[in-house]
């Protein structure tokens, strides 16, 4: 008997108190309202992201003839085909080169600009807006202006080079200069957002750290390397990963500045090659296989980023 009572009391103690019926009803209503409000977003995600992603993965393993509307199983044929294609392999290399030069270089410049714009200087807001402007301006508009500046005979760059007695190259039509030109535009365009993130991070660094360093007689350079840079680590990881993913997905400026993959395919990047395969050659299945490879690259980068930022968070 005692044991029964004990077990009953233990059971009732472990069970959560039953909410009153009215509260339960309210909870169900709130859940329904929440689902209802979430529904447009969920439907949007499934329709515009979920289904295309599933279809992309599915089509990568098929031969889908978009004009005839036929689908046949192809196994790994598309992957074999794309990796046997010199231009696709070249596009991977170009994407890596583009990323290598745009991400670290733009990050260094962005940190320097953010540090400068974190000082008390005149027209600070104007400078910040000016540096951020390229990020919010349409890429196509930017690319068109840069196209004019790169024009070999009338463009700004070669006019300036002419003044100092240098024969400027044909920036966008010379295979040796087309990629550097695209990288230059991309660095310029990408600095604004990176600078903004660094600026926010700089403003979160406790000022007393600098005061302590001042008391210890640390120089400005020493303070930058001993305090500012280490304190910017979380922001740096974030900027690095986001920029890497952005760089792997670059398309607009490459497409406008150097149509058709640039001279001798010198600016053919992965996204452009996917576009060309799908809409130039109508080979949707191969384009899907290329997209899966790009996805794998981005997934690896994201996982590395998560690991790094997660570890950093744990330490904090």
């Amino acid at each position: 008997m005692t044991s029964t009572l004990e077990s009953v009391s233990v059971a009732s103690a472990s069970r959560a108190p039953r909410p009153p019926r009215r509260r339960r009803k309210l909870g169900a209503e709130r859940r329904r309202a929440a689902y209802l409000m979430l529904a447009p977003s969920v439907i949007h995600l499934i329709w515009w992201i979920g289904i295309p992603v599933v279809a992309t993965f599915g089509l990568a393993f098929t031969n889908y003839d978009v004009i005839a509307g036929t689908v046949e199983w192809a196994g790994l044929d598309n992957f074999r085909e794309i990796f046997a294609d010199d231009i696709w392999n070249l596009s991977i290399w170009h994407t890596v080169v583009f990323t290598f030069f745009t991400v670290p270089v733009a990050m260094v410049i962005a940190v320097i600009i953010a540090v400068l714009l974190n000082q008390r200087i005149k027209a600070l807001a104007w400078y910040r807006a000016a540096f951020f402007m390229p990020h919010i301006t349409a890429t196509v508009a930017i690319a068109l202006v840069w196209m004019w500046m790169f024009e070999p005979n009338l463009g700004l760059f070669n006019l300036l080079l002419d003044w100092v007695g240098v024969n400027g190259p044909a920036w966008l039509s010379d295979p040796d200069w087309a990629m550097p030109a695209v990288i230059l535009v991309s660095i310029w365009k990408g600095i604004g957002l990176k600078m903004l993130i660094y600026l926010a991070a700089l403003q979160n660094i406790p000022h007393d750290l600098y005061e302590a360093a001042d008391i210890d007689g640390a120089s400005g350079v020493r303070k930058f390397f001993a305090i500012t840079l280490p304190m910017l680590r979380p922001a740096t990881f974030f900027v690095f990963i986001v920029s890497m993913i952005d760089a792997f997905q670059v398309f607009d400026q490459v497409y406008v500045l150097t149509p058709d993959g640039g001279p001798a395919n010198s600016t053919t990047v992965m996204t452009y090659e996917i576009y060309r395969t799908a809409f130039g050659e109508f080979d949707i299945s191969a384009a899907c296989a290329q997209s899966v490879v790009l996805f794998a690259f981005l997934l690896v980068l994201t996982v590395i980023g998560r690991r790094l930022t997660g570890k950093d968070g744990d330490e904090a």
Partner: protein
Amino acid sequence: MTRTRGSRTRAMAVALVATLFATACGGSAPSNDDEASGTIRLLTPIFEGADGKTVLEKQLGDFKEKYPDITVEVDYTSYGKLNEKLTTSIAGGRPYDVMLMGVGWIPPFAEKGALAELDESKQELTQRYNERVVEPGIYQDKVYGLPIMLDTRFGLYRKDIFAEAGIPGPPSNFAELREIGRKLTVRDGSGKLTRAGVDILSNDLRQTFLPLMWANGGELWTPDGKPAFNSPEAVGALQLMTDIIRTDKSEDFGFTQPGATGLPLAQGRAAMMVGHNNHLLAIEEQAPELIKEDKIGFFMINNERPAMFQGGTLATVSAKSQRPAAAKALVSFLTDEQASLAANEQRGNVPALNSLADSEYVESNKAAQFAMANLDAAYSEGGVPAWLEIRGDFKAAIESALLGQKTPQQALDELVVKAQAAIAKG
């Protein structure tokens, strides 16, 4: 019968993808509606910008008067974006009723059943058009496309620069082309090219190479449909381009490119070029005095035979159109004298109809006149269903030869291997 786990997975994957696409692409079957009425959709890459839209709207106003029961919804695009529009509309199960497309596009689309046969015969068409103009719209003896306009490529030269140098006329073979090119090339003291003797880079490289190949006696395909663009004649044509750049240095790679700001010929930075008939419009905008003073001349690319590249725009009807009668009425309207003349005028192109040779527009446009007078020597690209996959590879192959990365023979041999793979893939 035992089915393996792998085969079940494969079957399920195919079923999943097929279901997804059946849902997405499930356009309804074409209607047998013979009545020319209803709403039809037109996809056009040739009425670009506000000016193009104005021209087409005016024409469609006239069409509406003639066919009050047909409403036309227009989707304006450019040739650069045409593939995307066509692909997505067909994949989405809602193809356009009337599609304007380029030369070389008919075999791929007709082969896969995307185009409806038009109620025309080759014999009837050759009464109205030059036979060369009709051929790109025909696939396996059936007419799928009616020509609206022609985009031709041939030689353009500066008469004033030739006269200054004491050169009596344009080149009549490859050797003369090189010789005149070398003679008219000008570099400054630092070696910078200030005037190209021959500009082969302002025009699309494939469309520069092909007329040279045809002029040298080459063909794109053997009679049984195999790639022939690595023949000695084709290699000779690419060798000529390579010699112009690498040996004669009559132009530097990177000196200009298609669509560059300013046409070198108009600016006096080139003495002659392989160009498009509508480069005359560009010259008229950039240096109108050259037209007024008759300083621009034209010549056929010539070696073994005269040749001219003939592209163009054809009007087609989708095989899945719900209003085929209305769609065919629109095709007839767009290809008639009035509408096609307006379309050609706004693009500076060459009318396809023989009857327009005497039009005021053609009489005022010397490039159009020249092209129409030489249509018997016009050659078109395309010809096989895999053409759209093959054509994109020409540029890289030609560039690899011009840059000295490969010999012309190697570049074209590799191109042929790629073409064979594309044809085999089907």
